[in-house]
């Protein structure tokens, strides 16, 4: 049941306002056709039959094959010049097998029946070589067979929008940023990803997915050449699981101009006095703190020491499930692979499990984990939450983070309402420097723009601010959440994890939130 990219575009990919294929220039259509030729010149179902039957004959208890195409487009500019315009694509397959409770995986860009058979054999050879010494057999919880297709909910396919429009957009954004006297440099970037994924397994599932993500960004720098000082201000709007409509709907030019003004202001801003402050954190900042301090420690593979050699373990251990007071009672975190415009939103994960939504933290208590089929089996669970993901056809899929979001407060609390309750505090916008330990206790975060809060009102701009805290202290100090109108979705296009390192796109939504008595450092002062 192979669905071509053109079919996707015809049925839903190019919605209202987007260009249709018939309006594209001839050269573009011919290149699209060439791209499709390789992908659709192969019969994925037939190749899956080759892989799965070969694996079965060799004695595996489970096998899957992913035949995927990835397309990337990126445009980079600085000031009034274009630095790079590029499009890249990668096509190939990977076969994963479970033989005597041991994983094996092999992959190749050569998508032919002969090579599918050869690399399936190689995957089994690897598993067999390791199984000789295996101590703990891996098993999987079952999943229902499904034959279907799914596409992400974009409105305008960015790969159909002209390069010229994109360049002009970035250059006009740069112009807006440079309007303020004192701005020295601006870099801007626009990146898009399209994943065309096919999955088949010995469970009988066959799933096709078509996913679009957008990643615009910029950075403005102001230099004081007399003193040798420089400050920068990056974009607050992050990547989204959207199409080109994200570029068109967000007011990037206004933000770029504001960024220019704020970069210059930062040069003259008041250095922060270290000490304890209440914090009011905007979603453009808080998403990253959520990612590091909530998203990662609730990964079950970390808690089981599967990532001990690299990413680390977790301060949350399985015995704390349902017991740990992770945060204050107003704190609720939901993991959600169905969240609209989420970067980790999918129809199915990379082992055929449907996207789901579930609480990780409920009323401040840690209640559940992020799981995959093997992790669920290790811990006696009956089903997986569907967190398996491989970042390429050439990467073995493994546990990755779903969208993890802080739920809004129940009322209509605004940012001003939260600020009004602060005598001595700091309001932070944007993500900056970030660092957290290997068990996710101790963290330090910077930001883009810092405003002093004095006696319930926003005051002067501050600089050289970073806060340092301990995860549970921090979330238990949360005493105010904005209402739904303050909720925004931030995220990362490239969250790294695993060995070899893999990238994952993931979103984190949250309202404006207030935290009491957090330790603030001045990053420019050293003893």
């Amino acid at each position: 049941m192979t669905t071509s990219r053109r079919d996707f575009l015809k049925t839903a990919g190019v919605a209202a306002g987007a260009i249709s294929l018939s309006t594209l220039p001839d050269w573009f259509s011919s290149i699209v056709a060439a791209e499709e030729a390789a992908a659709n010149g192969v019969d994925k179902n037939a190749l899956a039959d080759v892989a799965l039957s070969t694996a079965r004959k060799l004695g595996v208890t489970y096998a899957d094959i992913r035949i995927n195409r990835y397309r990337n487009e990126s445009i980079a500019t600085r000031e009034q010049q274009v630095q790079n315009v590029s499009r890249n694509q990668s096509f190939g397959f990977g076969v994963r097998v479970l033989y005597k409770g041991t994983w094996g995986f092999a992959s190749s860009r050569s998508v032919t029946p002969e090579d599918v058979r050869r690399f399936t054999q190689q995957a089994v050879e690897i598993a067999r070589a390791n199984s000789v010494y295996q101590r703990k057999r891996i098993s999987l919880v079952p999943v229902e067979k499904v034959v279907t297709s799914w596409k992400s909910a974009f409105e305008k396919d960015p790969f159909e929008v002209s390069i010229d429009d994109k360049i002009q957009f970035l250059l006009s954004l740069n112009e807006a940023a440079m309007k303020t006297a004192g701005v020295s440099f601006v870099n801007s970037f626009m990146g898009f990803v399209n994943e065309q994924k096919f999955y088949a397994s010995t469970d009988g599932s066959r799933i096709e997915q078509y996913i679009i993500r957008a990643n615009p960004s910029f950075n403005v720098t102001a230099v004081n050449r007399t003193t040798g000082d420089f400050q920068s201000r990056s974009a607050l709007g992050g990547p989204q699981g959207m199409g080109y409509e994200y570029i068109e709907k967000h007011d990037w030019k206004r933000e770029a101009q504001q960024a220019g003004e704020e970069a210059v202001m930062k040069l003259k801003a008041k250095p922060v006095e270290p000490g304890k402050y209440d914090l009011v954190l905007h979603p453009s900042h808080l998403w990253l703190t959520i990612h590091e301090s909530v998203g990662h420690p609730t990964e079950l593979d970390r808690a089981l020491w599967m990532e001990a050699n690299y990413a680390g373990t977790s301060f949350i251990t399985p015995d704390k499930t349902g017991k740990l007071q992770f945060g204050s009672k107003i704190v609720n975190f939901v993991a959600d692979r169905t969240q609209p415009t989420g970067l980790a939103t999918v129809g199915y994960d990379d082992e055929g499990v449907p996207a789901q939504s579930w609480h990780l933290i409920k009323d401040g208590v840690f209640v559940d984990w992020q799981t995959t089929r093997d992790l669920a089996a290790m811990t006696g669970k009956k089903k997986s939450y569907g967190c398996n993901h491989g970042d390429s056809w050439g990467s073995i899929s493994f546990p990755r983070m779903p969208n993890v979001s802080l739920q809004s407060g129940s009322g209509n609390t605004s940012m001003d309402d939260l600020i009004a309750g602060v005598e001595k505090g700091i309001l932070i916008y944007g993500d900056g420097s970030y660092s957290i330990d290997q068990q996710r206790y101790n963290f330090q975060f910077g930001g883009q723009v810092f405003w002093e809060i004095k006696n319930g009102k926003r005051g002067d701009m501050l600089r050289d601010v970073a806060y340092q805290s301990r995860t549970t202290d921090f979330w238990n100090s949360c005493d105010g959440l904005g209402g739904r109108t303050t909720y925004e979705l931030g995220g990362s296009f490239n969250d790294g994890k695993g060995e070899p390192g893999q990238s994952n796109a993931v979103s984190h939504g949250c309202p404006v939130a207030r935290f009491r008595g957090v330790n603030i450092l001045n990053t420019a002062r050293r003893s």
Partner: protein
Amino acid sequence: MLFTEKDARAICDKLLSYVKANDATVAVTSENYSHLRFASNAFTTSGARENVNVFITVWIDKKRGAASTNEINDESLKATVALAEQLARLSPVDREYMPTLAKQTYKPTNAFAEATSNISVTSRAKTINDVITSCEKAKVVGAGFHQARGFATGSATRNGNFLYERSSLVSLATTARTPDGTSSGYFLRNHFDVAKLDTSRVASEAIRKALDSRNPRVLEPGVYPAILEPQAVADLLVSFAFGFDARNAEEGRSAFSAPGGKTKLGEKIFDERINIYSDPWHPELPGSQSAQGGLPAQKIYLVRNGVLENLVYSRFWAKQKGKEPTPGPVNNIMESSQPAVSVEDMIKSMDRGLLLGRFWYIRGVDPRTVLQTGLTRDGIWYIENGKIQYPVQNFRFNQSVIELLAPGNVEMIGKSERVGSSEGQGGNAALLPALKVKKFHFTSQSEAV
């Protein structure tokens, strides 16, 4: 199978034959990659990947476009060249365009071992079984990562240059944790030749560190004298040698910028024993033959005897400034001008301070001073009166690299070893020494293990 020089040249020639643009550079890479992970003293994931990539950059009337693909049939190659050319036609003039290089002469390096590229999965399984067995005997819980990679690349320009080279890399990292989770040790080494990777040392050092880190005491954060083992130096400094960009410094946005629009070139910025250089032909750390898009790489000093000797000029920026483009860096070597001091002698010489084995999650905080924050991990011990006294609970640090290496802060420098940063999973090899420094800034306690 990696591409041979003949394979690579044939594809490059084919790509260039399709190019109608005024100028172009093309490259083809092929890769064999294989890995094995283990955790909780058992095998976890293991796999292999074979891939190729073709990269095309063209300029039409100085307008630039780039495209890449991993499909190498004629139809795909033609389509990718056509795509790059269409992107170029749509782009504004590339103000930083520099004509691609004419034929260059390269001096080969020896950075490839066939046995690494085609690693035996059965012998690797046995090697990792030996590591796990060592962990079991020591009653610790082992986790780790073994990877082996062979890489071949061919690149060519429309103006007549061609280069083919191969490289390989193998690494093993092991973490050993006591079953109660209160102590952890780590060790990582890499090499281009699998025969020279001492896997039993990796296992035994990780286990020793875990056992020696039991029952840590809590110390107050603050400024401590410290000894950084080569792994800790790698974690903090492995990418530092690639941050000497002349343009950033001259544009006023680098730690090497000076007031009045100047740079710190020629100034003594570091301890006078410190040398930071790149040497493509170093036998222990061979680098690429080519730097900066095809310039024949040369041995270059960035810092010599503590003085900032070179900033790195791209071909474009060099032309703007009337300088020669810099033929490097292609690797990262830090060495002392004086005889090396062993870590044991550093410990003996220390009245009071800390021994640091590894840093983790290091991120830039202030680019003006290369201020970095991060944490200690997998081994930190308190030293008094020339002896290790006891293990210590981890800290977060906020430390300027410029201040770390500054005159007056560096007391002793060890022998440089081939290491790689732990966040880089051992892939970014460097030759770095242990350092004994007067001041290292710890800003909070970290209870993580």
